[in-house]
């Protein structure tokens, strides 16, 4: 499909940047428009693949933001986006919306800008366009603490209510030891970009010569239209450069044997995609709909394999709504299977974040309730004998 992509906040923008990087490296053309919105000037400088005039600084005149971010305060993130909604609208003026199939808004749900401003942007986009608006949200890790969890739990609600589908990415599941601050989230952002781009770039050339097995944008949109939270699985394998003359040298028997190993390979790939790390860990059987995209040289995609992989996934997801199709990439040296599990309702991490958020909110309310009183009692003596100077 063809997308307009918008990154909100630091994390959201970085992910969009990585998506563009990946599609350029693999000759895809998914992101027709890219835009990043942030409250922090320093963060706006980070993307390498987003043109200067596609970066919008908001909240520069807000007393507490001033171009420095909102310090994790989602309320301010939402406030500045609301205040500057006209500027946000205006930057869509030169977006040819009929050229895209959908809009994708990505954000880190733990930060103040991403969690606060993104839902405001989404709401506006839903008003402006008929095209579906999808969310791509990065869930904070447990060790980031209570405030990010609270931001995320709240923002998740807004996101899921407002978007047509919400693809979740769990930072905890993707956390790895050997990273320094410098490398930061690079690895996980690349993993995420690979998954989301490989999935959504299928069917980007709708009307072409490609065969009936090709995945269509409308198939992906149909799978996503149920709403809720979705998770993506991915697996890939290297392929040899196709050599058409080869098969003809084998006997029929040999060919069918080869085909069955090809079929097994395809099914194994899909299995691996579902059983390895999903963008957000979930109970696969809780998915409402599912879809498999095979991206790679068409010669590598065995029809039999696709069929048995689809059957297998139908069983796993306990749904008959499983679509499978190809994204032919004749020159690719890998064959990838991407599995979209749409509207998964059993996601333990989200439950955990919500629990952590409830605790955090209680602590915050307790602190607020006694704050003034405690300061007052600290600065005054017991009998209030000491008077202020002015």
């Amino acid at each position, binding site marked *: 499909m063809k997308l307009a992509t918008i990154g909100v906040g630091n994390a959201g923008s970085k992910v969009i940047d990585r998506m563009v990087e990946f599609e350029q490296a693999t000759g895809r053309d998914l992101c027709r428009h890219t835009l990043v919105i942030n409250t922090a000037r320093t963060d706006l400088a980070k993307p390498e693949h987003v043109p200067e005039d596609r970066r919008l600084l908001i909240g520069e005149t807000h007393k507490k933001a001033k171009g420095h971010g909102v*310090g994790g305060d989602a309320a301010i993130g939402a406030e500045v986006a609301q205040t500057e909604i006209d500027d946000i609208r205006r930057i869509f003026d030169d977006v040819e919306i009929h050229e895209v199939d959908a809009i994708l808004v990505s954000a880190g749900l733990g930060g103040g800008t991403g969690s606060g401003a993104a839902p405001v942007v989404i709401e506006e986009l839903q008003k402006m366009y008929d095209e579906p608006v999808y969310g791509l949200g990065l869930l904070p890790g447990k060790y980031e603490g209570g405030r990010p969890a609270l931001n995320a*739990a709240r923002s998740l*609600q807004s996101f899921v209510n407002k978007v047509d589908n919400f693809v979740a990415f769990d930072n905890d599941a993707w956390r790895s030891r050997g990273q320094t601050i*410098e490398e930061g989230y690079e690895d996980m952002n690349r993993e995420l970009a690979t998954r989301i781009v490989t999935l959504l770039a299928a069917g980007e050339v709708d009307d072409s010569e490609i065969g009936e097995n090709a995945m269509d944008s409308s198939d992906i949109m149909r799978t996503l239209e149920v709403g809720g939270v979705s998770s993506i699985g991915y697996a890939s394998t290297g392929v040899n450069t196709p050599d058409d003359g080869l098969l003809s040298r084998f006997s029929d028997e040999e060919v069918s044997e080869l085909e069955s190993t090809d079929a097994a390979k395809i099914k194994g790939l899909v299995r691996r995609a579902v059983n390895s790390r999903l963008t957000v860990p979930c109970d696969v059987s809780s998915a409402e709909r599912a879809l498999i995209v095979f991206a790679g040289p068409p010669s590598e995609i065995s029809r039999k394999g696709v069929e048995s992989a689809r059957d297998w996934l139908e069983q796993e997801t306990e749904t008959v709504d499983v679509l499978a199709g190809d994204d032919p990439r004749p020159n690719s040296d890998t064959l990838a299977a991407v599995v979209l599990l749409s509207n998964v309702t059993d996601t333990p991490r989200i439950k955990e974040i919500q629990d952590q958020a*409830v605790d955090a909110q209680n602590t915050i309310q307790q*602190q607020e309730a006694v*704050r003034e009183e405690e300061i007052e009692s600290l*600065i005054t003596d017991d009998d209030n004998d000491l008077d202020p100077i002015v």
Partner: protein
Amino acid sequence: MKLSLFGVGNAGTRLVDQLLQAEAETGRNFTDGNVLAFNTAAEAFGETEALPEERQILIGDTHSAVNQYVEPSQDGPDTDAASATQRDSAGVDGDPELGATVADDELPEIRRALDLVDDTEVDAAMVVAGFGGGTGCGVSSVLLEELKSVYEIPVYVLGALPSTRESDERALTAARAVRTFVPLADAVLPVDNDTWARSTTPLDEQYEEINEAIATRVLSVFAAGESDPGVVSEMRIDPADVMRTLDVGGLASIGYSTIEVDNSDEGLVARLMQLLGLADETPDNQTDAATVKRLVRSALESKLTIPCDIESTDRVLLILSGPPKDISRKGFETGRYLLEEKTGTVEVLAGDEPMPNASEITATVLFSNVTDVPRIDELQERAVTYKQEQDAETEAIDTTTAVEGATALDSDTSESEADDDDEEQPFEFHGDGDERSENGDASGGDTGTETEATEDESESVDPDSAEDEADTTAADTDSDDDTTTADDDTTTADDDETEKEAAATPDERE
């Protein structure tokens, strides 16, 4: 962040001068020259090294009640006894009321001076003063009022608390300064001179050393990221993070700790191997995570600018400063989580200050709105006792009725209490490290409940006492327990919020 600095009195002038020296030394341009110093006597003006002369504003020199100020001699420092004595009592001579009066009278001059500083270029302003000084307390009060009424940016106060070795009058002035500054300022950062002085040498000989330590800490928080704002980092600290942390007001305290980074060949080789894919996960990195966590722990257990029970803090900010390539992200995260566990607050912001060429990693922790600060209670007790004595004396001169006699008796009792307090000062030896016991000392110096408090505190050093800590936290706030039970659904609250937004602009889709 960018900060304008306003030094007031001798302490304020010296501290600002020290902050400017640190600014130059570290290359963290956080004031951009937006500095001023106000004084009622020229004493400290003669000593400055980095603070330009034209930014030093002498006020009240023509005021009748202000002692004739002594022009600093052009031909050499005053050494003769006569002028030294005169200089000691120059300025408002420790009288905060007089300090405030002078500042009020000279508001036009103060305002003219304020024009030299551009408040639109900075993120916040900071008034710096000795809380016990007549000038530091009196003039700062008026200045603070003025700044708060004309500035939109936050105004913070940094200042020294008088030592127990200083006069009761200074204690009274400082206690009143706290009482005045906290409601006016956006946050107040007191520095406990007693904690920072080594007990043997006279205090004034240690000012420079104390001021240096304070400047290091203040810059680590407020000047973070200003040395090279161009360096990109994943989790860079924003000025908004600092401001949001301090947003709750009250008193704030800073902890600080540093370690050298391994720039040895071995470390380099390991990194190279990793880069080349010859070693997929260097065991080093795991150590790094532990090292960073240990660093954060030692910062939170370090000698704080003002000792306090960190469990009483409202919000926390962690800044890791150093070469990003050496700071483990996991260490960063576990360090932050440690702070949440140790302080019991969920408002812990964290970020880094990328210093690619630094040879050390520094952890700075800002504890905002700490409410359990034994030094303040001590100061108040001493102040009240002294004030009652003063009042009694005045009244004893005026009249000699039996009623007043009773007041005099009262103050006698308080005086002996104060004596007890003083004896209690050396109370310590419960922590496990040097610095720790210094903290514990100060927080245990209160009367009445100090034994308990101290026990809690030393337990909190134990990494495995999470439950105990939770208990303590719960006990601290148990009065609100019932206000929070109703809330088992975070998301409902938000729904309302977003609903409001939606209501403001009708949603076509629904």
